[in-house]
C-alpha cells in the first residue's frame, strides 16, 4: 500500500487538503487528523520529521504556514517520502508560480488533480513534473 493518506494542514490546524487511500469514516478522519496535527505542531525544527502514530508513520514537512503530512506504512522509506513532499510542492510551484496556502484553498480541485496523477492507490506512480502537469493544463485549456 505504501502511502495511506496525504494531508495539508495550516498552522492553526485547519485541514486544507485531505486525500485518503483507505476508507475511514468521517469521525475517524476527524479524530486522526486532530491527533496527528497536535503531535506534529508540537515538534520543533531540530526534531526529525517523522512521527509514529498508532500503526502509521507520519512524515511531515513544513512550508511557511502549511504543513504537509503523509501517513505511510511502517516499511516505507521515510526520507524518500520527505522528498516526495518536496516534489509535490515543486510541482505545484511550477503550476501556480510560488504556491501558497491560498492557491491550494482556491484551486483545491487542481491540487487534487496533481495528486491524482502522482499517487494512485497509495503508490507513487509518476514523478516527472511534465507528465503530472500536462493533463491538468489540458483540462484548464478545454474549459
Amino acid at each position: 500500500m505504501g502511502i495511506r493518506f496525504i494531508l495539508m494542514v495550516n498552522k492553526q490546524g485547519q485541514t486544507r487538503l485531505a486525500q485518503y487511500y483507505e476508507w475511514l469514516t468521517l469521525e475517524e478522519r476527524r479524530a486522526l487528523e486532530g491527533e496527528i496535527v497536535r503531535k506534529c505542531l508540537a515538534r520543533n525544527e531540530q526534531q526529525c520529521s517523522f512521527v509514529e502514530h498508532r500503526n502509521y508513520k507520519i512524515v511531515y514537512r513544513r512550508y511557511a504556514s502549511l504543513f504537509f503530512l503523509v501517513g505511510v506504512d511502517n516499511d516505507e522509506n521515510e526520507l524518500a517520502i520527505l522528498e516526495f513532499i518536496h516534489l509535490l510542492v515543486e510541482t505545484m510551484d511550477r503550476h501556480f508560480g510560488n504556491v501558497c496556502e491560498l492557491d491550494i484553498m482556491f484551486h483545491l480541485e487542481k491540487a487534487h488533480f496533481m495528486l491524482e496523477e502522482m499517487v494512485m492507490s497509495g503508490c507513487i506512480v509518476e514523478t516527472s513534473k511534465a507528465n503530472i502537469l500536462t493533463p491538468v493544463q489540458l483540462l484548464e485549456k478545454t474549459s
Partner: protein
Amino acid sequence: MKEYIIRLVYVEMLGHDASFGYIHAVKMIHDDSLLVKRTGYLAVTLFLNEDHDLIILIVNTIQKDLKSDNYLVVCAALNAVCKLINEETIPAVLPQIVELLAHPKEAVRKKAIMALHRFYQKSSSSVSHLVSNFRKRLCDNDPGVMGATLCPLFDLITNDVNSYKDLVISFVSILKQVAERRLPKAYDYHQMPAPFIQIKLLKILALLGSSDKQASENMYTVVGDIFRKCDSSSNIGNAVLYECICCVSSIYPNHKLLESAADAISRFLKSDSHNLKYMGIDALGRLIKISPEIAEQHQLAVIDCLEDPDDTLKRKTFELLYKMTKSTNVEVIVDRMIDYMNSINDNHYKTEIASRCVELAEQFAPSNQWFIQTMNKVFEHAGDLVNIKVAHNLMRLIAEGFGEDDDTADSQLRSSAVESYLHILGEPKLPSVFLQVICWVLGEYGTADGKYSASYITGKLCDVAEAYSNDETVKAYAVTALMKIYAFEIAAGRKVDMLPECHSLMEEFLASHSTDLQQRAYELQAVIGLDAHAVESILPSDASCEDIEVDKALSFLNDYIQESIEKGAQPYIPESERTGMLNISNFRNQDHHEASSHGLRFEAYELPKQTVQARIPPASLASTELVPVPEAMYPRESYQTTTVPSVSSDAASTELKLRLDGVQKRWGRQTHFPSTSTSNSTSLKTVNGITQVDGSNTANSRTRETYDSRKQVEISPEKQKLAASLFGGPSKTEKKSATGHKSSKPSSHMVKSHAPKSSMEVASEKTSVQQPPDLLDFGEPTVKSTAPSLDPFKDLEGLLEPTTQVSSAVNHSSTAAVTKSPDIMGLYTETTAGAHHKDSDILSGLSKPPMTNMVGGTTTMQVAQSSKGPNLKDSLEKDALVRQIGVTPSSQNPNLFKDILG
C-alpha cells in the same frame, strides 16, 4: 455547480457531514464539460467508499467513459475505477481495462496498470489470469508506465518470490540504465536520475535477493555502483543510500557492499540532521543482523540518540537496542525501557514496549531475582497492557526456581518475592493481572519461610479481595490463596482461626452470583473442616510444580468395569467405532454403567491420579463428595503454570550461559575508549568538586563493577567501565546538568554577573585551566561563593559571613542529612542551588535573611569548601572546576530567583 461541489468537498474535509450533496456529485460526472466531469469524479472518489449505495449509479458512467475517445476522460474514469470499484463490479469493467493496457497514450496505460493492480489487491483471483500483463508492461517504452508497473510487481513478488526470480536480470538492467541516466531528464530530481524508481527497484531487488546467493550475485555490481554515485549531500541521495543499505542487508551478504553500507551508516549517524540520524539508527538495526560488530563503532552515537529529547528518535533507538540485546546488556536496556515506558502515556506504544521488556527479560535474564523485580516494575506500570501469559510465566518461574538443584536459593527467591509483593500491596491501585500473580505467590509461599504469620498474609489477601471487589478474577485468586494458606496451616497441625473479615468475605462469596467464586468459597469451607491428613494430600505444600500425572486410561476403574461386565453389562465401544450407529441414545440408555463411565471420562481427565486413587477411600462420606471438587479446581489452576512448556525458561537459562562467551564483540574495545575517558573525567570532576560525594560515588561504581564481574566471568576492564558508562552513572548527571544549564540561560540576565559567568563557564569547559586570569576576572562572585577561604575579595567576604554563620549553626545536622543521601544528582543540584543563593545574596547585598531550604545547600557547599581547603594550593585547575560546578545552574534556579527577588 462545480464551485458548489468543491465547497462540499471542503465541508467534508473540515469534518462535517455533507452526504446530502453526494447525489449532485454523481450527477456531475455525466456532464459534458471535461473539467466539470473530472471535478465530479474527484468529488465522488472523495465522498464515497466502494460499498456506498450510489456506486451502482456510477458504474454505468464509468463504463461509458472508459470507451471515450478523449484520453482525459478515460483517465478521469480510471481514477474513479481505482477507488470505487468493488469486488462485485470488477467484472463489469475488467475487459475494458485490459483493452486499455494497449492504449496509445502512456498516461492511460499507466492508469490502467494501476487499476489492474487495485483489482489484484481487492480480489487476486479475479485477475490471476492477467498477471502476465504486468510483466509485459515492465518493458513499456514509456518510463512512466514502467515505473508504475513496479508497484504491482512489488506486491506480486512480496506474495510469491520464487516465480519472479527470472526477472532479476531485467530489474538489474533497468536499475543500471536508470543509474546511468538513460531516462529522460524530466525524471531527474535534484540531480538524481529518477530516484523514486531507483528506490522501488532496490526494494524489489531486496525481496528477490533475500537468502538467494545466485540472484544476489547479479545485483552486487549495480548496487555498488549506486553506492558510489549517490550524492550524500542531498536528502534524496541519502534516501537512495538508505534503500541501498536495506537492500544490502536483505540480500546474500557481500563483504564489499557491507563495508560501503557501514560507511554510509556512520555518515548518517555523524550527521547533525535528526532525520539522517533516524535513518542511520534504522539502517544500523537492519545491518546488525548480518554483521553485529558494526555496532561497536557507533555506540556513542546510539547513546546520544537514546538521550535525545526527540521522541521519535528515542523510539527508534529502543528498537535498535531491542534488536541488539544480549545477556550482558539486558539489564541496562530493560531498565532504560522501563524508565521510558513510565514516562509515556501513549497506550499503543506502551503495550509494545512492555511486551518487548518482557520478552527480553525472559530471554536474557541474568538472574531470577532481577527477572522478578523487572516483572514487578513492568506489571506495576503497564500491568493491564501485558499478556496474561506473562503472568503465568512469572508464577511458574517463582514456583520452579531457576532449574538448578539449589533449594535454598529458590526459597530465598520466593521469600524475597513474597516480601516485595507484600510491600507492593501497599500501593493504592494495581493492575488486575499483577494482583493475580501476587495472590497466587502469597497463597503458595506466603507462609513457607515462617517469616510472616498466616493471619498476616490472610489479612492482606482479604484486603485485596475487598479492595478490588469488582474484579472477579482477582477475588477468585485471593480465595484460592486463602484456601491454600489455611490448608498449609492445617497440614502443619496448627489450629486455624479465621479472621473475622475473612469470615464475612466468605459469607459474601458463598452467596456470590459468580459460580466460580461461590464454588471456591465452598471448597474453602470444606477444606477447613477436614483433618490434617486429608488436607495435606489435597493441597500438598509447595507442590505446584510437581508433575500431575493424569491417568488417561482410567486404569483405576478397571476393577469396577470388570465387575459390571461380569454382572452382564455391555463392554464399552470407543466413540470412533460407534460413529455408524444411529441408536446411540438407545445404546446409552441400555447401558447405564458404560454411560456413567463415559460421562466420567470427560471430567476425570483433570483429576490427578494420586488423590482419586488413594485418598478417597479413607476419607469420610461427606468428604468424598467434596474432595473431588477442589481437586478439579486446584490442579487446573496450577496446571496452567506447570504444564505450559517449561522448556523456554530452562532454555533461556542455558542460553544465557552460552551467550556470555560471545559478549565482548558487541561493544568492543577500540571504540570503547572515548566513552570511558569522558565518563572517567566527568566522574573525576565531580569528585574534585564535591569532595564529599567522592566516597559514595566511587563506592557506587565499585559495587557496580564488582557486580558486573560477578555477572560476567571473564570480561576485560574496558568492558566493565563501558558498562558503567552504559549504566548511566556520572556521565548522565553531567549531561543533565548541561541541559539544565542551557535552559536556564535565558533567565540569567536577572542576575547581573550571571550571563558572563555562564559563558565563562563554557569557556572554562573548553579551555579548562589555561586561562585562569581571564576567568578569575569574570568569576569573582562565584569563586567567592564556592570557596570563601580563597579571599582575594575581602569586601565580599564580609558580606558572606552571616550566611556562613547561619549555616554553621545548623551545620552538623544538615551535613548528616547530606551524607545520608547517596543521591549524587541531589547533591549536585543542592550545591548549585547553594551557590546560586549566595550569588544572589551577594548581589542583593544580603538584604534578606537566608531561607531555610537554602541552608542545606549552603552547608553542602561549605562541607565541600572545608574539605577542599587543603587542596587549595594544589592548582588552579581545581578552582576552575569548582567554579564550573558551582555555577552550573540547574533548572530549579528560575524559581529560586523568584523566591528571592520577587
